[in-house]
C-alpha cells in the first residue's frame, strides 16, 4: 500500500486508517492496557470473595494456608518472576535487533511457564490425594474447622483461573516465538511482541498477590 511505502515501512504493518505507525502503536498499547484492566477486574471478583471469607474465617484460612507447600509456592514465585524478566529481555533484544537472543529468551520464558504449570500440577496432585478440595469434595483430615473448605474453594478458583491465564499466555508466547523466528520483529516494529509481553507480565502480577495471600497467612 502506498500509505505504508510513503512512510518507508514494510507492507502489512500500518492499517489504512492510521496516519502514522507511532499513532497505531499508541492505539495498540492503550488497547492492550484496557484489556489488562478488564483482566484485573476479572480477578478482582475472586479477590473480593477471598477477602470476605478470610474476614469471616480467619482461623480456618490461617490453618489451611499452613498446609500448603510453601517451598513449592515460593519456587513458583521465583520461576514466574524470572520468566517475567526473560520476556522483558526478549522484547529488549528484539528492539535492539538481536533476534537470536530474543528467540532464546522467549524459549526460556515458555520453559518457565511449563515449569510453573508442572509445579502447580504436583501441588494439585497432593491436594487430590489428601482430599483438601473445594466445597463438597472437602475431606481433609488435617484441618477440620468451619471455613476450611471455603479456603480451598478460593484457592482452587484463584490458582485455577490464574493457571488458565498461564496457559493462554504460553500460547501467545509460542505464537510470538514463531513470528520472531520469521523475523517479523525488529527495531522498526516490535509492537506485537510488546503486547504479548504485557500480557505475560500481568500473569506475573496476579501471582505476586496470590503468593502471600494463599501461602503466607
Amino acid at each position, binding site marked *: 500500500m502506498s500509505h505504508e511505502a*510513503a*512512510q*518507508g*515501512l514494510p507492507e502489512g504493518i500500518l492499517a489504512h486508517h492510521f496516519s*502514522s*505507525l*507511532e499513532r497505531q502503536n*499508541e492505539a495498540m*498499547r492503550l488497547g492492550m*492496557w*484496557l484489556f*489488562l*484492566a478488564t483482566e*484485573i477486574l476479572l480477578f*478482582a*471478583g475472586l*479477590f*473480593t470473595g477471598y*477477602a*470476605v471469607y478470610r*474476614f469471616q*474465617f*480467619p*482461623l*480456618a484460612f*490461617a*490453618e489451611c494456608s499452613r498446609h500448603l507447600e*510453601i517451598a513449592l509456592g*515460593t519456587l513458583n514465585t*521465583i520461576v514466574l*518472576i*524470572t520468566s*517475567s*524478566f526473560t520476556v*522483558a*529481555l526478549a522484547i*529488549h533484544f528484539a*528492539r*535492539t535487533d538481536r533476534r537470536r537472543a530474543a528467540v532464546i529468551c522467549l524459549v526460556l520464558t515458555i520453559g518457565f511457564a511449563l515449569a510453573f504449570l508442572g509445579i502447580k500440577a504436583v501441588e494439585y496432585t497432593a491436594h487430590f490425594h489428601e482430599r483438601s478440595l473445594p466445597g463438597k469434595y472437602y475431606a481433609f483430615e488435617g484441618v*477440620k*474447622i*468451619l*471455613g476450611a*473448605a471455603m479456603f480451598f474453594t478460593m484457592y482452587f478458583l484463584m490458582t485455577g483461573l490464574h493457571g488458565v491465564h498461564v496457559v493462554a499466555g504460553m500460547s501467545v508466547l509460542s505464537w510470538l516465538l514463531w513470528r520472531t523466528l520469521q523475523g517479523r520483529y525488529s*527495531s*522498526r516494529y516490535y509492537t506485537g511482541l*510488546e503486547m504479548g*509481553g*504485557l500480557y505475560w*507480565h500481568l500473569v*506475573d*502480577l496476579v501471582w*505476586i*498477590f496470590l*503468593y*502471600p*495471600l494463599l*501461602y*503466607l*497467612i
Partner: protein
Amino acid sequence: MAESATQHQHETHDQHSAVPYVVVWIALLVFTAVTYLTGIQHLGKWALAIALAIACTKSALVALIFMHLRESSGATRLVFVTSLVFVALLLFFTVSDVATRFTLATPAGAPFGTERSQPEGLLEHEMPAEE
C-alpha cells in the same frame, strides 16, 4: 517528517539498555525472600499489611519497568490506576458490609454457624489454640 520520526525512534532503541531489567529482577527476588521470611514468622495482625505492602512494591516495579509504564503516555497510566481504584472500591464496600453486619443468630442444632457464634464449627473438633 514521518521518515525522520522513525529514524529517531531507531536511534533511541539502539541505546535501549537492559540494565534496569536486571536490577528489577534482582529486586523482585529480594522482595520475594523478604515476604517469605516475614510470612513464615506469622506476625499476627501486621502480617497482611506487610505482605500486601511488599506485593504492591513488587507489582509497582513490574508495572513501571517491565511493562514500561514509566515511559508510557498518560492515558495508559490512567487506565492502570483507574482499574486499581475500582478494584479497591469493590473490595471496600463488600468487606465493609461483612464487617459491619449483625451476626445472625444461629438456631440450636443448625448444621453450621459462623465462627463467632459457634466455635466448634463443622466437624466436632477442637479449635486450634492459637489465633
